[in-house]
């Protein structure tokens, strides 16, 4: 079964989604990421979704869940590179993902994570 690779970069975990998300993939991502955060005690998670072209309500909710779980484990989460169509879909679905930090690109996202983790 395909899995989304989780890369450890210093104190952060880098997740790049290069394939179209389906429900089971999203669930396994949530499991894997939670385990990874807890085993590595990472301070921040950066999810790059610039290759993601479509979302539905399930995937959107999954992102919200992943973010909430990460926060419980005291890790900051940043979603970067969301495409316009995806952003519009999420807003129309009423999923504003409040509490998730967002950034335009990985560079900016890393900067945000550094600032956020330095503060805490």
């Amino acid at each position: 079964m395909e899995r989304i690779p989780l890369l450890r970069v210093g104190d952060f975990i880098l997740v790049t989604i290069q394939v179209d998300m389906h429900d089971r993939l999203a669930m396994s991502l949530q499991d894997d990421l939670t385990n990874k955060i807890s085993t590595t005690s990472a301070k921040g998670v950066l999810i790059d979704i610039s290759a993601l072209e479509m979302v539905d309500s399930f995937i959107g909710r999954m992102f919200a869940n992943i973010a909430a779980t990460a926060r419980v484990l005291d890790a900051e989460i940043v979603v970067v590179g969301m495409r316009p169509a995806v952003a519009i879909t999420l807003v129309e679905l009423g999923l504003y993902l409040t509490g998730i930090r967002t950034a335009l690109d990985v560079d900016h996202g890393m900067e945000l994570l550094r600032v956020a983790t330095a503060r805490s």
Partner: protein
Amino acid sequence: MQPKSQLAQILKRFETDILAEWVAEQLRSLKASGQRSDAVRDSELREDCRRFYQSFADAASSANASDVMATEWSEVRDVLTNVSRSRAIAGFSPSETARFVFSLKRPLFQRLGQNLSANGDALFDAVQTTSDLLDKLGLLTTEIYQKGREEVISRQQTEMLELSTPVVKLWDGVLALPMIGTLDSYRTQSVMEALLVRIMETGSRIAIIDITGVPTVDTLVAQHLMKTVAAARLMGADCIISGIRPQIAQTIVHLAIDLGNITTKATLADAFAVALERLGKDITDRRAAR
């Protein structure tokens, strides 16, 4: 089949006469309505009439003489479509357009009357079928005219949309969206898309939505604005809303619209200053520093 073939026969036999009278009648009514005589050239009108008349005569002598939607009538419909569409675009009124067909009645009835005066029943039948046919064709013209006008309207709408959604780059990393005119859901949607696409293209972290040109803000418009801001935030860009006029600020408060934690500024200049500050840029007056 007798009355129908009567019509067909008369159409064929008096082609030149009826055609000439019909054209003359139309020219007269065009003149009477005044300014329009220049909108349609005489030669063009003559050609349209000739083509319509011939296809009408052919269709009337065919087997499907009474059903104007049948394939035998396709050429008649084509000619009518052309005439109605060009007239709709030229700015004719619906009745002026429909007169193209209805003015054929008088010359045609005259000939029918002259030739069938001996047989009252046959005359009545012929007049009735002819009248039916021309009425249907007249309605068809109006329908096509309507469609033509709708096309004009929708084209103007798209042109207006294109006009009204410029996304301007103010600085490296700062975009501005000067909104002008009333915001409806369709327009907001296209504005939103244009803004988000430009944010992605330019990698801008800050977008200023200026609503100086928006005449009124109601709950719906506010909701649209909030959605745009939320979508931009999801992409990683901050939005600032500027150009809120005093009356609009009062309306927003009266309607109890909660703009949440969106940064709002009175003028575009204020918003731009905030944007530069967030990017870590300073504006200094060199004379004052000296």
